[in-house]
C-alpha cells in the first residue's frame, strides 16, 4: 500500500518536473534559510549557558538618575566589591576587571622575547570569581590568584605563548612592560559562546599593586565599565531580595552627589548577552529583538514556501482530479485519498529537507562568519535534527492538508467528466488571499531592507563633525618614563614626508570608551549632568579637523590650565551664545583644579550615532595619553605607515606597534548593524525569491488553464498587449492590496528599529514608492515571461489541443 502510494507520488513528481522543481527548490531554500537562522538564533541564546550556575549568576550593575534621564553602566566603583561582600554575606560575590589592549611580553628561557597585544581577554580577578563561574583548571587552582603577581592562562593562550601549555607553568610574563607575573595555572578554553573570553587572568592583587597602571581607585565616585561584579545567589535567595538590599546599599554608599542618585541592581547572567544598556566583556551584544526579527523572517520564509505549496498544489488539483476520480471509483475512500496526498507532500517535503540541509550546510561557513559564530559549532546536532523533524511535520501539515482536503473531496463523476476547473476547486479566492499575504510579507521585507540600507548609509555618510579620513591611530599605552619620549617622537614623526600632523590623546574623538565624571562650573553648585572628558594635546583639533565656533584651542603648555568644551556643554548649561562661556572656569572630578575655558568646539559625534552627543571637555593631561593619532597625506600611505612603524620601534623598542585607521574603527561601531543588515538582506532576498517562485508557478499554471481562452481571444482579434494586460492586471491589483497591508506593519516595525538611532532617517513616501515599484517589477518579471509566451502562442494550435 505504501509502496503504491509512494510510487505514484514519485512518478507524479517526475512527471511534473517544472512544478516539482518549483516546489522542491522553494521549500528547500526556505528550509535552508530556517535552519541557518535557527542555528544563529540558538547560538546567540546559548551564550554562557554552559556555566553550571547559569540560572543563579547575577551581574551587579549601576544606574545613575539625572535630570536628563537614566544612565546605565555595567561597572561599579572599586570599593563596592568589598562592601558588597560585607553587606551580603549570604551570597558569593566576585569581580572581574578587564584591561583592553594590554601588552604581554613573553620572557623565554634564552632571553628571547615575544610581544603580544591582547585586545581582549586580559583580566584581573580574585579566587571568588571562580566560585561563581566554573572553569576546568588543567593546572594550578583559583586559590593561587590570592597572591600578587601571579597569572593563569587559558590553554590556547598558553599554547600561543609557549607552544605547549605544560611548558607554561612557572614561566614569567611582563605585563605592559611594568609588571612581572608568574604563570601558576592553566584554564581549559571556554566555548566560543561566552561573554567572558578569559585568555589571561591575573590576580586582582596584581592590579592593586600596580601603582595605578591598571587604574585601581579606592574612591566611590569613579565607575568604569572595566570593573564588573558578579554574584552567585544561593537557591533560597531571590533576585528581588538582593535588589531590595541593594537599594539601601546604594543609599548608604553613594553619597557624593545628592542630585544624581546611583542605584545598584542585579542583571541576570541570562541577560548579559542581550541587554544593550550594559556592555559586556565579549565582542558583541545581541538584542533579543534582533533575534526575534530574524526568527520572524524565518517564519515568514517558511509560511511563504507553504503558501506556494498550497497554491500550486490546489491549482494543479485540476490536473489530478481525474486520477482522484478513478481512485474513488476503484473504491478509495476520502481518508485514503487524503492520506495519499499528504504522503506525497511528505515525500516532497523530505526531498526538500535533504536539499535544504545540503544548502544550509554549504552556506553555513559563510553565515557563521557573518553572524560571528566562533568555536567549533557544528551544523548538525541533536537539536537541529529535532528542529528538522518539527519542520517536516509542520510543513507537511500546513502545506499538505488543504490541497489534500480539496483533492480528496472531488465527487468522482465531476472529476471523471473533467468538469473540475480551477474555479470549482474553490481555491481562487483563497489563492488570491494567499498571494496577497505573500505580497504583503515580501513588501514588508522589501521596505525593511530599504530602510535598513538607507539608515546604514546615512550613518556612514553622516557629518560626524570631524575628519575621519587618513588618520592612523597608534596604540600608545606606555608607562610613564616612556611618555617622556613623546615630544621627541612627535618631532621624528613630523619629519616623515607624508605626515601632516601628530597628536597624543586619551582617546579618538568618537569611540565607545568614555570617561565620565561629575564636574563644577563657574564656582557654582555642581550641575546635575555628567561630563565626558577627553585628554589631548594641542594638535588634536588640527589632526581630526575639529572646528572651533568660539575662542581658540588651548595652547601648548604644561602648566596653564586651559580647557575646551563642546557646544552641547554650553547648551546644557543654558548658555545661548558660546562666546559667553569663554573665560569661565570649570573643574572636573569634584575636587580638581579650576581650569579656564578658552574655546568651544563645534559638536562632533562623541559616541556611536545610536547615542546623542554628550557634553564634553577636552584638556591636557600627559599621563592619560594612550593613543597617537597621525594625520597622513593620502599619497603613498603604506610607505609612510612603514616609516611610522620604524620610528615607533626606535623609540619604544619594548612596545609592540599596533595601529589601525580611524575610519575602520568608526565603521566597526556599526559592524553589528551592518552584519545584521546583511543578514536581513540575504534572508529578505530569499523570502522575495520564494514568493517569486510561487508567483511564477501560479502564472505558468494559469497560462495553461487559459490557453483556450487566450486562443479564442486572439482569434477574436486581441493583440499581444491585450493578453499581457489580461495576465498582469490581476497580479498588479494583488500587489496593491498587499502593499496597503504592508505599509502600516512595516512602518511600525521599522520605526522601532530606527528609534535606537539618535541620528536617523525618517520615513518618506519615497521609501514606500520604491518598495512598491520594486515589488511591481518583481511581480511583472515573474508574470511576464509566461504571459508573453502565452500571448505569442499560435491560436490555431492552442485551440486544436482542446
Amino acid at each position: 500500500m505504501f509502496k503504491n502510494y509512494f510510487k505514484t507520488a514519485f512518478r507524479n513528481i517526475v512527471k511534473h518536473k517544472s512544478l516539482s522543481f518549483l516546489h522542491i527548490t522553494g521549500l528547500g531554500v526556505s528550509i535552508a534559510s530556517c535552519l541557518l537562522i535557527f542555528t544563529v538564533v540558538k547560538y546567540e541564546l546559548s551564550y554562557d549557558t554552559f556555566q553550571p550556575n547559569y540560572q543563579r549568576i547575577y551581574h551587579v550593575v549601576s544606574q545613575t538618575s539625572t535630570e536628563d534621564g537614566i544612565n546605565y553602566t555595567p561597572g561599579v566603583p572599586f570599593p563596592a566589591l568589598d562592601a558588597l561582600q560585607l553587606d551580603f554575606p549570604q551570597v558569593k560575590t566576585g569581580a572581574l576587571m578587564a584591561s583592553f589592549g594590554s601588552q604581554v611580553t613573553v620572557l623565554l628561557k634564552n632571553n628571547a622575547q615575544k610581544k603580544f597585544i591582547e585586545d581582549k581577554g586580559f583580566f584581573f580577578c580574585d579566587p571568588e570569581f571562580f566560585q561563581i563561574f566554573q572553569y576546568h583548571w588543567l593546572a594550578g587552582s583559583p586559590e593561587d590568584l590570592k597572591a600578587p603577581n601571579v597569572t593563569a592562562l587559558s590553554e590556547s593562550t598558553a599554547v600561543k605563548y609557549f607552544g605547549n601549555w605544560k611548558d607554561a607553568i612557572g614561566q614569567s610574563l611582563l605585563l605592559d612592560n611594568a609588571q612581572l607575573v608568574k604563570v601558576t595555572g592553566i584554564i581549559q578554553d571556554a566555548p566560543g559562546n561566552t561573554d567572558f573570553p578569559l585568555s589571561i587572568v591575573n590576580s586582582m592583587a596584581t592590579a592593586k599593586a600596580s601603582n595605578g597602571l591598571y587604574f585601581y581607585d579606592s574612591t566611590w565616585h569613579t565607575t568604569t565599565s572595566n570593573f564588573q561584579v558578579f554574584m552567585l545567589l544561593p537557591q533560597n535567595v531571590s533576585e528581588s531580595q538582593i535588589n531590595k538590599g541593594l537599594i539601601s546599599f546604594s543609599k548608604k554608599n553613594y553619597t557624593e552627589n545628592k542630585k544624581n542618585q546611583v542605584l545598584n541592581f542585579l542583571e541576570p547572567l541570562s541577560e548579559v548577552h542581550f541587554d544593550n544598556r550594559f556592555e559586556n566583556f565579549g565582542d558583541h551584544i545581541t538584542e533579543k529583538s534582533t533575534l526575534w526579527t530574524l526568527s520572524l523572517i524565518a517564519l515568514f520564509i517558511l509560511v511563504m514556501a507553504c503558501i506556494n505549496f498550497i497554491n500550486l498544489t490546489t491549482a494543479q488539483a485540476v490536473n489530478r482530479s481525474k486520477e482522484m476520480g478513478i481512485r474513488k471509483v476503484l473504491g478509495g475512500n476520502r481518508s485514503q485519498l487524503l492520506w495519499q496526498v499528504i504522503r506525497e507532500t511528505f515525500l516532497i517535503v523530505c526531498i526538500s529537507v535533504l536539499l535544504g540541509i545540503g544548502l544550509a550546510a554549504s552556506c553555513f561557513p559563510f553565515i557563521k562568519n557573518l553572524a560571528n559564530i566562533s568555536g567549533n559549532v557544528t551544523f548538525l546536532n541533536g537539536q537541529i535534527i529535532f528542529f528538522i523533524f518539527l519542520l517536516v511535520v509542520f510543513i507537511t501539515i500546513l502545506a499538505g492538508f488543504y490541497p489534500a482536503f480539496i483533492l480528496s473531496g472531488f465527487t468522482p463523476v465531476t472529476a471523471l467528466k473533467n468538469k473540475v476547473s480551477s474555479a470549482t476547486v474553490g481555491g481562487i479566492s483563497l489563492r488570491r488571499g494567499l498571494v496577497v499575504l505573500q505580497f504583503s510579507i515580501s513588501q514588508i521585507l522589501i521596505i525593511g531592507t530599504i530602510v535598513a540600507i538607507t539608515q546604514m548609509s546615512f550613518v556612514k555618510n553622516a557629518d560626524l563633525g570631524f575628519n575621519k579620513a587618513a588618520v592612523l591611530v597608534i596604540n600608545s599605552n606606555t608607562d610613564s618614563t616612556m611618555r617622556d619620549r613623546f615630544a621627541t617622537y612627535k618631532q621624528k614623526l613630523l619629519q616623515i614626508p607624508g605626515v601632516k600632523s601628530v597628536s597624543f590623546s586619551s582617546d579618538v574623538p568618537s569611540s565607545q570608551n568614555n570617561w565620565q565624571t561629575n564636574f563644577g562650573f563657574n564656582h557654582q553648585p555642581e550641575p546635575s549632568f555628567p561630563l565626558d572628558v577627553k585628554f589631548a594635546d594641542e594638535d588634536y583639533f588640527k589632526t581630526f579637523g575639529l572646528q572651533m565656533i568660539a575662542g581658540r584651542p588651548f595652547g601648548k603648555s604644561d602648566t596653564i590650565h586651559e580647557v575646551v568644551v563642546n557646544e552641547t556643554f554650553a547648551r546644557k548649561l543654558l548658555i545661548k551664545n558660546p562666546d559667553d562661556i569663554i573665560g569661565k572656569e570649570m573643574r572636573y572630578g569634584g575636587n580638581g583644579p579650576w581650569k579656564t575655558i578658552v574655546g568651544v568646539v563645534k559638536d562632533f559625534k562623541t559616541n556611536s550615532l545610536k547615542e546623542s552627543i554628550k557634553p564634553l571637555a577636552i584638556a591636557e593631561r600627559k599621563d592619560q595619553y594612550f593613543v597617537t593619532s597621525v594625520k597622513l597625506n593620502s599619497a603613498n600611505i603604506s610607505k609612510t605607515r612603514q616609516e611610522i612603524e620604524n620610528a615607533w620601534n626606535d623609540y619604544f623598542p619594548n612596545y609592540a606597534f599596533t595601529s589601525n585607521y580611524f575610519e575602520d574603527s568608526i565603521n566597526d561601531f556599526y559592524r553589528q548593524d551592518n552584519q545584521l543588515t546583511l543578514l536581513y538582506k540575504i534572508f529578505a532576498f530569499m523570502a522575495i525569491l520564494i514568493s517569486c517562485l510561487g508567483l511564477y508557478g501560479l502564472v505558468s499554471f494559469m497560462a495553461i488553464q487559459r490557453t483556450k481562452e487566450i486562443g479564442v481571444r486572439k482569434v477574436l482579434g486581441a493583440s499581444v498587449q491585450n493578453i499581457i494586460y489580461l495576465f498582469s492586471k490581476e497580479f498588479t491589483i494583488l500587489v496593491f492590496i498587499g502593499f496597503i497591508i504592508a505599509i502600516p506593519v512595516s512602518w511600525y516595525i521599522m520605526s522601532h528599529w530606527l528609534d535606537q538611532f539618535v541620528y536617523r532617517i525618517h520615513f518618506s513616501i519615497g521609501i514606500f514608492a520604491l518598495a512598491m515599484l520594486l515589488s511591481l517589477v518583481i511581480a511583472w518579471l515573474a508574470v511576464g515571461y509566461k504571459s508573453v509566451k502565452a500571448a505569442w502562442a499560435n491560436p490555431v494550435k492552442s485551440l486544436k489541443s482542446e
Partner: protein
Amino acid sequence: MIALKNIFKWYNTGINRTFILKDISLNVAEGEFISIMGPSGSGKSTLLHVIGLLDAPNEGSYSFMGENVLALKEKKRSEIFKTHIGFVFQAYHLIDELTVYENIETPLIYQNIKSSERKSMVADILDRFQIVGKKDLFPNQLSGGQQQLVGIARALIVHPKLILADEPTGNLNSKQGTEIMNLFKELNQEGVTIIQVTHSEKNAEYGSRIIELLDGRIVG
C-alpha cells in the same frame, strides 16, 4: 438484484429545473446483460452513475441486493460499492502514473488485501487476459484496445457481481470493439451481471435486454 423505483434526477439552472432522469423504474435480475441506449443527453450515463452509486438521485428509491442503498451511511455504501461493483469507462480512465500491474492492483489496495494475496490475484487476471508481458508498461504505451482490456481486468479483479460499462468500445476500432464485447459476453456467461451504455445497435445485441432512454425517460 437491482430495483430502481421512481428515480428523478435534476439540476437547478436559474429558475428552471432541468430533469436528467424522470421517473425511472427498473428491475435488473442477477445474471442479466443489459444495454442502455439512447441519443446524447438522454441520461444514459447518469442512470449508470446512479446505479453505480457514484451519483445520488434527487428522488426515488434504490435497492441493491435487497438493501436500500440510498438510506445507508456513506461508509457502508462505499463498502457495497467496493466489493460488488466494477466500472469500465469509454476513456479507460487508467491512472497514467501507474503501470498496468499497479493499475490492476489498486482496487485491492483499497480493500486492504494483503500484498501476497494481491500478487497472486493480479497474476491470475494478467494470465487470463494474456497481458502478462505488458504488466510493467504504462497506459500510454498501450493501444486503446489493450488499455480497455486493462480497464476491464481492473474492474474484474475484485470479483464484482455487477459490471457497469460506459460505452466501453466508444474509443475503439471495430475489431478491438468486437473483442471487448466477446469478453463481456463470456463474463456474463460466468454469471457476472453487466449493464452497458452504448450507441451501437450491434453492441447492444450482445445483451439480453435493451433499455431505450429519451429525455430522461425509459421509452422501451
